[in-house]
């Protein structure tokens, strides 16, 4: 058998077992290329080309002669096409030896595979199932990638819908439906976050004055309208990151993060009161209310405790009511009952 016939016979066998192969002669030139190798090189027949001029050997490095190639017998090769699209390949080379039973003397057989780059390669080279060996798992891998993508897409959509539902439910759980302000649950969350992060803040308790009269004389619709208008006013008179809570009926809690200046707090409170005293129109009739406010500031405590501060703000609020309503009172320890004040006077 001539050497050429022997190479053809070998090539026929390799085409079935590993269609992306190349048979090299002793100078490192391709004497037979598999059908898929030709497709990869975009040629009818890659015979005659020098293997290392077409493929760059990335690992192991520093291999440039056929002798060096034959020395890396059986090692996993990382190759890359020198021409675009510079596809990365895996490969293995087996030298045929000086007196081979088949193939060219001093030559070698190289088998190639796409590895993970198979996803791009099927598109770049328009590969079909017939381009892969029957035993190759590439098509199964492509199947899995598509199946995974389809399932992930369905999962992603479900997650988006669930997330949307969660946000809506949370908003509902933290919002007062009449005014759109936060509710007590929202207040607890904001206050405990401020305490945990040890941020200073001013805590304001606000009670509407004469609101019951509006409700009694003009009906609940008027009352609801006033509450909505009050909420709008409070939002307009405060900063975006201040928290306004409708704590119940006509009671509100305002939390001003980072605000510890007493004059500034009083300014805000007095402006709120004067804005709330402006008549509110409902069906052409005037509703007149006012507000009493009690405030306490975390900076005034050695160790601020939430319960204590809530209680102190309440004490200040009732002092404001006692002093005739429509007023703002800043908490001071002397407000805590006359007894302790009296005791102090007696002690002098």
């Amino acid at each position: 058998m001539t050497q050429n016939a022997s190479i053809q016979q070998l090539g026929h066998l390799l085409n079935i077992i590993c269609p992306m192969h190349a048979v090299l002669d002793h100078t490192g030139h391709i004497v037979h290329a598999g059908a898929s190798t030709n497709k990869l090189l975009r040629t009818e027949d890659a015979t005659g080309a020098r293997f290392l001029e077409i493929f760059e050997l990335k690992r192991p490095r520093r291999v440039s002669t056929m002798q060096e190639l034959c020395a890396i017998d059986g090692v996993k090769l990382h190759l890359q096409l020198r021409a675009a699209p510079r596809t990365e390949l895996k490969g293995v080379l087996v030298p045929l030896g000086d007196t081979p039973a088949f193939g060219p003397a001093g030559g070698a057989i190289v088998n190639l595979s796409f590895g993970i780059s198979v996803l791009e390669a099927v598109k770049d080279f328009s590969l079909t199932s017939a381009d892969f060996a029957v035993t190759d798992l590439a098509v199964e891998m492509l199947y899995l990638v598509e199946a995974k993508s389809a399932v992930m897409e369905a999962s992603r959509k479900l997650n988006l819908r669930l997330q949307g539902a969660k946000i809506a439910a949370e908003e509902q759980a933290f919002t007062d439906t009449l005014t759109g302000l936060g509710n007590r649950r929202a207040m607890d969350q904001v206050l405990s976050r401020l305490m945990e992060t040890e941020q200073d803040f001013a805590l304001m308790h606000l009670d509407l004055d004469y609101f019951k009269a509006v409700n009694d004389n003009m009906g609940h619709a008027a009352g609801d309208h006033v509450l909505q208008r009050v909420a709008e006013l409070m939002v307009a008179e405060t900063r975006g990151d201040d928290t306004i809570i409708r704590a119940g009926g006509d009671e509100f809690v305002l939390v001003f993060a980072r605000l510890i200046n007493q004059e500034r707090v009083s300014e805000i409170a007095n402006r709120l009161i004067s804005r709330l005293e402006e008549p509110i129109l409902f069906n052409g009739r005037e509703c007149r209310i006012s507000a009493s406010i009690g405030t306490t500031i975390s900076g005034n405590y050695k160790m601020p405790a939430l319960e204590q501060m809530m209680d102190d703000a309440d004490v200040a609020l009732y002092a404001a009511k006692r002093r005739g309503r429509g007023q703002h009172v800043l908490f001071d320890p002397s407000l805590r009952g006359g007894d302790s004040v009296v005791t102090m006077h007696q002690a002098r």
Partner: protein
Amino acid sequence: MHGSINRAIERFVRDTYGRDVWIELTKKLQLGFVEFEPMLNYEDDLTIRLLDELSRELSQSRADILEDIGTYLMSHANFEPLRRLLRFSGVTFLDFLHSLDDLQARTRLALADLELPMLELREFATDFFCLTVHSEQARLPGFGHVVTGLLRAMADDYGALVFLQHKGGRDGREIIEVRLLETAYASGREFELGARAG
């Protein structure tokens, strides 16, 4: 029942008979929602009630509806990914027929909790086969009809001419007869490995 099965029935009704028919159906069944989640699970009984109601509404037998669903799944653009997944199984229709034995395992690779019936192909002649559908595994009596519709559409897809007949069922198994009249009757639809990959 896996939500993807209910979702497939839903899409079939919506795409074939329109949104109104579907919404009406959900009201009659008092579902309380109008869309099935393919990634959630539902009571088995719900799928049966859905099919019964659909059968009443359309005045068609459940078998006919199930077969239409099978054909719909393989031919409608909304389920193109599913058709592609099945086309991966074989280069020719004959290949595809032989790959049906692996369908259950292949499905599990994609969706571990989707229980499809095991399929068993027996070859009596090079052009005559019997496919056994173990429908009790899918907990959906009549699943063999879905498979019949699916095979019919896939034969078209490959351009093969086949004669299919559902031979009925017993003990949770259904038999489908497949006669392969011509493997390359028409040109079929295109399939490229890399069309969607990556």
